[in-house]
C-alpha cells in the first residue's frame, strides 16, 4: 500500500506538473496554431449557451476557491471560523460544483447527440470530459458527505500540496484521507497530466491583455 501511495501521491504529481510545464511551453513556442479550444458554437449555438456558461462560471469559481485556500490558508481558516461564514463558503462551493456538473452534462449531451458536433470532437475530448465529470462528481460527494471541506482542506490538502512544491511530498497526509478525497486528488493530477495535450490549453491564453491593448492594430 505504501508503494502505491508513494507512486500516486509522491511521484505522479511531479510527472503531472513537469508534463504540464514542459509541454505547454514547448507547444506555445513551436505550434501556437493548435492552441485554442476549437469552438463549436458556429455549428450549434443555443445548447452551447446553457452548457458553457454555467460550466465556466462554476469551474472558475471552484478554481479560484481552491487556489485561495492554497495561497492563503491561514486567512481562509480564520474567515471560516464562524458557522455562518463556513456555511456561506460551503454553499458557494456546492452551488459552483452543481453548475460545473450540470453545464458539463449538458455540454457532453450536446456533443453526443449532434452529428455535426461529433465531427469536431476528438478522442482526447472524451478523456477530458470523463475526467472533468469525475472531478465534479467526487467534489460534490466530498462536499456533501465529508464535511466541512473548506475547513479540513486547508489543514490536510494544502499542507500536502505545499509539500509537493517544496520537493518533499508528505505522502502520509494523503494516505490518511478518505478514498474519495484521494481519488479527487488523483483526478486533478490526471487533468494536469493531459492538460497540455488537449483543448484545456486555452486556459493559459485567456485574452486578459485585451483589457488594455489599443483597439486598432496597425503593423
Amino acid at each position, binding site marked *: 500500500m505504501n508503494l502505491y501511495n508513494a507512486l500516486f501521491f509522491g511521484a505522479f504529481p511531479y510527472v503531472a506538473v513537469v508534463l504540464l510545464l514542459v509541454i505547454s511551453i514547448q507547444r506555445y513556442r513551436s505550434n501556437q*496554431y*493548435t492552441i485554442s479550444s476549437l469552438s463549436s458554437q458556429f455549428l450549434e*449555438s443555443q445548447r452551447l449557451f446553457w452548457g458553457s456558461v454555467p460550466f465556466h462560471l462554476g469551474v472558475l469559481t471552484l478554481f479560484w476557491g481552491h487556489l485561495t485556500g492554497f495561497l492563503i490558508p491561514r486567512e481562509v481558516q480564520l474567515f471560516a471560523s464562524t458557522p455562518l461564514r463556513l456555511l456561506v463558503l460551503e454553499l458557494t462551493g456546492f452551488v459552483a460544483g452543481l453548475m460545473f456538473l450540470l453545464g458539463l452534462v449538458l455540454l457532453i449531451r450536446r456533443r453526443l447527440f449532434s452529428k455535426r458536433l461529433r465531427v*469536431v470532437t476528438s478522442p482526447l*475530448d472524451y478523456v477530458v470530459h470523463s475526467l472533468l465529470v469525475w472531478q465534479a462528481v467526487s467534489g460534490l460527494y466530498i462536499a456533501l458527505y465529508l464535511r466541512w471541506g473548506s475547513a479540513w482542506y486547508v489543514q490536510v490538502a494544502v499542507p500536502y500540496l505545499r509539500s509537493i512544491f517544496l520537493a518533499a511530498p508528505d505522502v502520509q497526509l494523503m494516505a490518511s484521507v478518505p478514498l474519495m478525497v484521494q481519488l479527487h486528488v488523483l483526478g486533478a493530477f490526471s487533468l494536469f497530466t493531459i492538460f497540455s495535450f488537449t483543448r484545456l490549453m486555452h486556459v493559459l491564453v485567456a*485574452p*486578459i491583455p*485585451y483589457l488594455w491593448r489599443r*483597439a486598432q*492594430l496597425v503593423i
Partner: protein
Amino acid sequence: MDVRSQVSMVFHLDKCIGCHTCSIACKNVWTDRKGAEYMWWNNVETKPGTGYPTAWEDQSQYSGGWEVKDGKPHLRASGRYRGLTNIFHNPKLPVIDDYYEPWTYRYEDLFTAPAGDDQPTARAVSMITGEPIEITSGPNWDDDLSGSPLYAANDPNLTALTPAQREQIFEIERLVFFYLPRICNHCSNPACVASCPSGALYKRGEDGVVVLNQARCRSWRHCVSACPYKKTYFNWAAGKSEKCILCFPRLETGQAPACFHSCVGRIRYLGVLLYDADQIEATASLPDDQLVDAQRKMILDPFDPEVIRAAKENGIHDTVIESAQASPVYKFVKRWGIALPLHIEFRTLPMLFYVPPLLPIIGNGKGDAYDATSPNLFGTLDSARLPIEYLARLFSAGNVGKVRYALRKLMSVRYVRRQGEVGDVPAAMVDALLAEADCTREEAEAIYRLTSLPLFDERFVIPPSHREEAIAALTDPLEFKGATGVGFRQKPERVS
C-alpha cells in the same frame, strides 16, 4: 496629419453582369479546403435580396459594426468588457445555417451502382457530416430572384422605401434588380480588429490590408460578430477565423487579386489612397448624413506638397506616392465623387467603393416597359425603376443627395457620348445637363475612358511592395524557403 497608404478598390456596378467569376476565382485559390467550404470571401448578391449570410445587413439581428455613444464609436456587439464577459458564449455569432450547409454529391454512386431499371443518381451529402442532406440554401440562393416574397421582400434596406415604392419595384414583369459583388472592405476603422480579444487581426501598415494571424487566433469568434459585412468567417474544422487577404501574395508580386484579375465585366479598379489616420475616430463619430463627406475629407490629395511631405515622414515610399497619384480609385472617389462606400453607417469606414448603378434605365412610364415619350431620353432619375432612396440606403447612409450627384454625373457622361456618337441631342441641352451635374466635357470624357476603355494597368495601379525595406529582410532570408501557404512551416493541423 498621420498619413497612411491604403490599397483601395472601386466596383463599377453598372458593369457587373453577375457572372460569379470573381467568386469562383477566389474559391479556387483560397477557400477550397476543409472547414472553409461554406466561405465565400468574394460573393455576388442580387439586390434587392437578403444576401449571404441571410439578411447580413440587419444589424438589429447581427449587431455588427460601431454605434456612437457619448460622442465616440463603440463596438455594437462586443468591446473590451462585453467581449470578455461573452467569451463563453457569443450571443451574436451567426451559425452555419445562417450561411448554408456546404454539400457535395456522391458522384462515385454513378459508377458503382448495380445495373437496374433506373438511372443511378448522385445524392447530395453534407460536407460537414458526410450524411445525405436536403439542400435548402446556398451562397447565391436568391440569385436573380428579385421580386420573390421569400428573398427580395426581406431585404433589410427596403425599410427606406414607401409602400408604394416597394410595390413598384416588385411589379410583375417589371421587376428590377442589380448585382452587388462583395469582398472584405479592408476598412480604416475595422470592427474585426478592434473586437479580437487575442489581437490576432491587424491592418498592414504598408498597404492597409486587414489580415488575421492564424497562429494567434484563439477561436474566440468575436471578429465574426463584429464585422457588419460578415466578411470574417469561422473555419469550423480548424477553429480559426479566416478572411479575404486581398490576395496580398499576388499584390506583393505586382499582380491584381484573383477576383479583380478574373472579372469578366472589368468592373473592378484597384489603387492606392492616402488618408489621414488622425481623422478616423472623429469621422466615425459623425451623424449618418455627414459620413460620406467626412470620409472623403479623410482621403488626402496625393498631389498636395504638404501631404507628400507628411507621407514621406511616415515612411511611405516615393513610388507608392506616385502610385497614389495615378490611382483610378482616387479619381472615382474623390475627384469625380461618383464612387460611394457600402453601408458607411456601420462606421467601419470601408475602403471599397461602389459606383452606383444607373441601370436599369427604364423610366417609370405609363404602363409600357419603356417610356420613350419622356423629354430626356433616359427618363428622370427620380422616377427611375430603382428608387434612389434604395441606393442611398446602401451607399450613402440614406443621404439621397450623394447618390443623385453620382447618378447625374453618370447620366451626363452618357449624354456627352450620345451627342458625339448618335448626334441626336442638342449641344446646349448637354451643356445644361453637365452644368447641373457639376461636370465638364473633359471630366465626362475622362470618366468615359476609365469606365469603358481602360487598359489593365489603368484599372489596377498596384504599388511596388518594396520587400527590400520589409522587416523580413532583416531576419533570416531563408526563413520562408520551402514554406507553403501563408507562412506556416507546419501543416495547419490540430492535435486535439
